[in-house]
C-alpha cells in the first residue's frame, strides 16, 4: 500500500499551505479525525491553484499533494475526468488491475491502487478529492452568480 510515490508525496508535499482562492471548504473524516481545509482558484475554465492545509495520515496527506500536482493548470473538464477516474480506482476494492488508459489519466495517483483494498483507508485517500469537488462547485456557483468569495 505504501508505494514510494505515496511516501514521497507525504514527506515532500506539493503545494501545501493556504493561498488565495475563490472558494474554501473544510472536510472531516469523523471516524479517524482526518481534516483538510482546501481552497480552489479558477481562471475561467482553468484551475489556477489548489491550496490546502490539514492533518491526517500519510494517505490523506499524500493524496492531497498528488491532487495538487495533477490538477493545477488543468482545464476543469479534464480535472473532473481525473477525479472520476480516481474515484473509480478507489472504489474498485483492489479487484481490477488499473489498465493503461487509467494509468495515463492518473499518473502518480495510480500508486493509490493498493489503498483500494483497504476499505478503512479509502476514505482517507478520497478526503481531499471530495473537498476539491465541493470547493470547485462552490467557486463555480459564485462565478455564475457573480459574487465574491
Amino acid at each position, binding site marked *: 500500500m505504501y508505494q514510494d510515490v505515496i511516501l514521497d508525496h507525504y514527506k515532500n508535499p506539493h503545494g501545501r499551505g493556504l493561498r488565495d482562492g475563490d472558494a474554501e471548504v473544510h472536510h472531516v473524516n*469523523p*471516524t*479517524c479525525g482526518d481534516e483538510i481545509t482546501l481552497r480552489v482558484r479558477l481562471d475561467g475554465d482553468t484551475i489556477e491553484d489548489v491550496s490546502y492545509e490539514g492533518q491526517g495520515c500519510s494517505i490523506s496527506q499524500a493524496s492531497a499533494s498528488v491532487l495538487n500536482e495533477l490538477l493545477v493548470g488543468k482545464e476543469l473538464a479534464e480535472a473532473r475526468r481525473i477525479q472520476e477516474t480516481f474515484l473509480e480506482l478507489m472504489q474498485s476494492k483492489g479487484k481490477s488491475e488499473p489498465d493503461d488508459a487509467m494509468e495515463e489519466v492518473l499518473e502518480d495517483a495510480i500508486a493509490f491502487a493498493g489503498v483500494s483494498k*483497504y*476499505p*478503512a*483507508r479509502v476514505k482517507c485517500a478520497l478526503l481531499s478529492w471530495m473537498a476539491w469537488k465541493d470547493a470547485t462547485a462552490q467557486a463555480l456557483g459564485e462565478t455564475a452568480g457573480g459574487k465574491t468569495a
Partner: protein
Amino acid sequence: MTQLPGLLDTEAIRKDFPVLDRVVHDGQRLVYLDNAATSQKPRQVLDVLNDYYERSNANVHRGVHVLAEEATALYEGARDKVAAFVNAPSRDEVIFTKNASESLNLVANMLGWADEPYRVDQDTEIVITEMEHHSNIVPWQLLSQRTGAKLKWFGLTEDGRLDLSEIEQIITEKTKVVSFVLVSNILGTVNPVEAIVRRAQDVGALVVIDASQAAPHMTLDVQALQADFVAFTGHKMCGPTGIGVLWGRQELLEDLPPFLGGGEMIETVSMHSSTYAPAPHKFEAGTPPIAQAVGLGAAVDYLTSIGMDNITRHEHALTHYAVGRLLEVPDLRIIGPTTAEERGATISFTLGDIHPHDVGQVLDEQGIAVRVGHHCARPVCLRYGIPATTRASFYLYSTPAEVDALVEGLEHVRNFFG
C-alpha cells in the same frame, strides 16, 4: 414411505443437520416438531461460525488490521445477503438486532421518541391483532402506557382467521401504526397483508409486519409487502440464536431517532452532545452480534440454495397431509384453520380433555418433540377458551414419516390416559 407431490429430498437435507441424528430416552430417534419455537442448524452454518471464530474473529469497523478488515467484510457481507433475501431496495435498510423482539421494541420506542408526523402520543391509536405473539403485544402496551396512546386490535373468527369486518372502525384517521403478524406462531394462519396495508395507507398509518414465522418458510419481499418495517429472527430460519433483523424504509430510518446509544452508532461524540451515524449503524449500538450475523448470512445462503419456493411447497404438502391425518385422531380439535390453505406448517390442537402437558410429555417419551402451552400467544388461548394447546410445527427437513410418528404417538397418548 408416504410420497407426496412437492416434497423436498429430505434424505439429503437431513444429513446437513447433525442434531436430527440425536437419539433420546435410551433409543428413541428424535422427531423434532418444534420448529416454530426454533429451527435446527445445518452443518453449513456451524462451519461458517467456526471459521469466523478460528480465523477472522475481531471487532468490526475502523480496524486497520487484517482480522478487523475480514470481520467487517463478513459482517457487512451478511447484511448484503439478508438485504437480497428480503429484496430490500438498499442494504442500509437492514438493521441487525438480537432477536425479533428487540426489532419490534426498537420500532415502538422510535415512534414514542419521534417528532411529528411519526410521534405516537395520547391523541393517537395503535392497532394490533388478537393473534400476535407477546413480542408484538407487550411493546405496544408499554408504548401505550408511556404515551397515553390507545391500543386497539382485530379479533379472530371461529376458524382462526383475522376478523377484518370492522376494519374501518378499527383502523381510523387517528391510527399512527398498525402492527401485525404475517404468519401466526400458534394458529398457523397466513394473514391477508394487502387488505390491511391498503387501509393503513389510506389513513396514513405506518405498517409493521412481524415476519418471524414467515421469513423461514416463504419468499419474503419487503417491497411487495409494502410495509414500513418488517421484523424477523435468525434462530427460526437455520441461523444462530442471538441475531434478529429489522428492515425499515430508508427515509423513516433517516428521520426517526436512535434507540440505544453507544459505540458504533455515533458519528461524533463530545461530553456535551453527540451526532449519530446514518442507518443502519445508528440503530446498532455496541459491538454487534458479529458471528451471529455472519451465521445468519450462511443460513440465508443455505435456504436460498434449497429455494424458498421449494420450501414453501414442501411444507404445504406436508401440512395438507398432517391436517388430514390429525383430523382422523378421535377427540382431536385443531385450533386454527383446518385446511392447508393460507396457513403455514404450524398446527395447534387439543386432544379431548387430556392436558397438553401430558400430551407433550408422553410424546417426548417416544422421542417426539412438540411444544405445549400458550406459545407466547395467551390471548389466542383465552379467545378459544382453552388453557393451552399442543403444537406441532414442521420445517424443510420434516417428513411424512414424522407426521405418521406424531399420529401414532397421539394414539398412544389417548390409550395411556384413556
